[in-house]
């Protein structure tokens, strides 16, 4: 029993537990709305350009990501994230928000070390581990 784990256990009783149900319901509704909107976009694209469902969904995800980048640039996406938690951060739009906000935040440090270097600061975990997993599995999967 280290000092730190003792502290964590002792202080536990005084920490308010997060409102699990309320947070989950908010994430459910906001996340669901984003997905329904993307579904509508995919249907529209698939119907208008006679694209395959796969291509239509990819296009819809890109449009939603673009929307998230614009909302991030005007500083509005954080309001969503504050309210919806995982409903806003655990979608493709959340990845776009993480990368765009890091890029904007670090522009004062210059274009190479700042914007380009720090861009994946928050979104990097998702991209990098997904890429490694897909590459390795792609090599060894029968």
């Amino acid at each position, binding site marked *: 029993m280290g000092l730190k784990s003792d502290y964590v256990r002792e202080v536990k009783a005084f920490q308010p537990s997060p409102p*699990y149900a309320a947070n*989950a*319901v*908010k*994430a*459910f*509704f*906001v*996340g*669901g709305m984003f*997905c*329904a*909107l993307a*579904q509508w*976009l995919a*249907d529209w694209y698939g119907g208008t350009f006679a694209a395959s*469902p796969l291509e239509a*969904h*990819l296009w*819809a*995800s*890109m449009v939603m*990501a*673009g929307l998230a*980048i614009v909302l991030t*640039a*005007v500083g509005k996406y954080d309001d969503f994230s504050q309210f*919806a*938690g*995982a*409903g806003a*951060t*655990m*979608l*493709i739009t*959340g*990845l*776009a928000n993480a*990368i*765009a906000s*890091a*890029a*904007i935040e670090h*522009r004062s440090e210059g274009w190479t070390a700042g*914007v380009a270097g720090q*861009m994946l600061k928050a*979104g990097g*975990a*998702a*991209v990098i*581990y*997904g*890429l490694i*997993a*897909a*590459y390795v*599995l*792609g*090599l060894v*999967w029968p």
Partner: protein
Amino acid sequence: MEYVRAFLAGGLLCAIVQLIIDRGKWTPAGVAGSLVVFGVLLGFGGVYDPFVAWAGAGATMPLCGFGYWLAKGAMAEPRPEGFVETGAAVFRFAGALFAFIVAGSFAAALTCKPKG
């Protein structure tokens, strides 16, 4: 009806992930990374294809959908083989999204100053 399915599937996924974040000791970035790897695994296992067929955007929009795009490229027919083909194939679908996000973020950094 497909909107309802997308809403339910996407919403449920987000709610479950929210519970994991609230209950566990994981950081949001760790959860995001795990979600993508989870999507890659399900994509390779062939579980995610029927899920996408059923839920549509409710399956592709959450971060595990990004993993699905990665896996989908690596599993495309004809099946890529070796280091060169596999490395290129991984980006076949996910690369579209990734390039767009990175370029868009750079454009945002060009035109906007940090807020707040």
